[in-house]
């Protein structure tokens, strides 16, 4: 691929809302029930039934609008999106078209160490469709309508992303935010959070190219690979003198390629119109204020506090607010008297790596915030070296200690740093006596020999000697 193509990506994300009941009926939304046991008369579209809007779904949309700084419509309308498919027994999906519940807003995240902001176009409420099972009964397709009517918030961005990596970073930030504000469980295996990517390429500064939409990407990895494949495909088509046809494509993870859904020409003629079964939805200021008042601190607010009150960098603050659980963990660490910058480094570094290796999130961390803050205090007062502290962290995480008491683990595992001047001098004397060659090298001007001697002293003390004191003692004795 030649380098002079600019990639333009917009994402549409369907976030399944965490309501107990469906958006227009009182049926349960619990995952994994036997087929059709959670499909009520409204969900299966029996004649004469009428939808009644779930307050909890609207309330979650309001939370999202507040979290991204969008405008929440005082009045919005539900529309019918008409198409025929067996997963949608009404023949239309109830969605929002001209007047969505949330307009505008932005989402910021870290990309290669810099802050990137993506503008949101809108977020609207709609119902999910049912599920087709092609293998269950030979010769037929089986229809399970348990999912029909599950509330979704469709979140649409402006075409602001310029690479697959950027699209993934946005999707991860959005995933963290919807979980942060508790409107979506984010379970991608169960389809609670799925993305459609609109991808086009153009010459930098030129008019937007024709876009293709890749549907139903339910993992960050597939999102990245599908977009990368699609970029290569479009550039190849254009460079070979062809034209991109606007169409919907599906990503096939087994073959790592996208292919056309070959939809009929009329498939996109949805003939939207306001749903006569649903009156306009009014959202007054008082309701928005109530919802806002009940929300926990948003990532933006926490970042502001970390920067202004704790003196952290924007970079550190962004990393700490990657998820609510991580921020809560950091807040727990900061309850003790520890230095914010050092605490941030440990949370973003050692603890994140430890959890990553174990495949755990911060809410299930085997090391508590309190335990980490104690470790940091022991570094600060010289009891632990940096290396020793990492060992203590791993010991705590292993969970062998009955009490989990950090001081007890330090004592029982003998991880305390040697800061006793006499003991260090003795070790230095011993190492100098055993390595006359190194001593001579250093005295004849070979600076490197000094580091080798430090290494020998550390080895002799099982890495527990205070490195600053070892350096000082060696310097003094070597003259």
């Amino acid at each position, binding site marked *: 691929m030649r380098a002079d193509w600019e990639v333009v990506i917009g994402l549409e994300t369907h976030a399944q809302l965490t*309501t*107990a*009941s469906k958006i227009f*009926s*009182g*049926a*349960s939304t619990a995952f994994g029930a*036997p*087929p*059709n*046991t*959670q*499909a*009520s*008369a409204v969900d*299966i579209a*029996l004649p004469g039934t009428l939808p*009644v*809007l*779930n*307050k*909890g*779904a*609207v309330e979650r949309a309001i939370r999202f609008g507040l979290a991204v700084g969008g405008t929440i419509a005082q*009045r919005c*309308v539900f529309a019918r999106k*008409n198409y*025929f*498919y*067996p997963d949608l027994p009404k023949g239309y999906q109830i969605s929002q078209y001209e*007047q969505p519940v949330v307009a505008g807003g932005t989402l910021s995240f870290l990309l290669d160490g810099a802050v990137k902001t993506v503008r949101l176009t809108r977020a609207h409420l709609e119902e999910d469709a049912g599920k*087709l*099972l*092609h293998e*269950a*009964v030979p*010769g*037929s*397709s*089986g*229809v*399970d*309508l348990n999912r029909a009517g599950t509330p979704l918030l469709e979140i649409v961005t402006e075409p602001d992303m310029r690479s697959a990596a950027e699209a993934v970073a946005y999707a991860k930030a959005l995933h963290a935010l919807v979980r942060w504000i508790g409107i979506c469980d984010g379970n991608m295996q169960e389809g609670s959070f799925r993305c459609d990517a609109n991808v086009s390429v153009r010459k930098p500064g030129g008019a937007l190219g024709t876009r293709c939409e890749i549907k139903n990407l339910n993992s960050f990895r597939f999102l990245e690979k599908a977009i990368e494949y699609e970029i290569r495909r479009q550039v190849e088509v254009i460079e070979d003198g062809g034209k991109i046809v606007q169409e919907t494509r*599906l990503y096939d993870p087994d073959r790592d390629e996208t292919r056309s*859904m070959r939809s009929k020409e*009329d498939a996109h*003629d949805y*003939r939207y119109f*306001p749903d*006569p079964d*649903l*009156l*306009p*939805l*009014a959202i007054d200021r008082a309701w928005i204020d109530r919802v806002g008042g009940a929300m926990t601190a948003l990532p933006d607010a926490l970042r502001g506090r970390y920067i202004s009150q704790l003196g952290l960098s924007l970079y550190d603050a962004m990393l700490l607010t990657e998820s609510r659980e991580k921020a809560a963990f950091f807040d727990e660490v900061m309850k003790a008297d520890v230095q914010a910058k050092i605490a941030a480094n440990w949370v973003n570094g050692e603890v994140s790596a430890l959890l990553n290796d174990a495949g755990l999130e911060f809410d299930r961390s085997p090391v508590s915030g309190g335990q980490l803050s104690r470790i940091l205090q022991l570094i600060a007062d010289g009891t632990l070296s940096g290396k020793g502290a990492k060992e203590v962290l791993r010991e705590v995480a292993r969970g062998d200690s009955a009490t989990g008491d950090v001081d007890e683990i330090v004592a029982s595992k003998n991880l305390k740093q040697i800061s006793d001047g006499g003991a260090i001098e003795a070790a230095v004397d011993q190492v100098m006596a055993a390595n006359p060659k190194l001593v001579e090298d250093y005295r004849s001007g070979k600076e490197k020999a000094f580091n080798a001697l430090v290494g020998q002293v550390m080895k002799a003390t099982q890495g527990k000697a205070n490195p600053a004191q070892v350096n000082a003692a060696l310097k003094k004795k070597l003259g």
Partner: protein
Amino acid sequence: MLSLQDVQRIARLARLELSGAEAEAMREQMNAILAMVDQMSAVDTQGVEPMSHPQDVTQRLRDDVVTEPDRRDDFLALAPQAEDGLYLVPKVID
């Protein structure tokens, strides 16, 4: 004015099969409706908010509570074909 082709396309979108005579009859009726709409368009509506519903009232909301029991067996009995708790339709391939 709608052509016969327009009428057939609208019918196809609605999954309706129209004979030639039916399509012609529909064309006349639909054009009559559009003519009436044209007549209404002549009214000056400047400054009037479009309404999405004939009554100027707003949606009442339902609390987020599960109220519907499982009535799968009753509902499946209404379907032309059902098996293993699933409604059956002719095989659909994407």
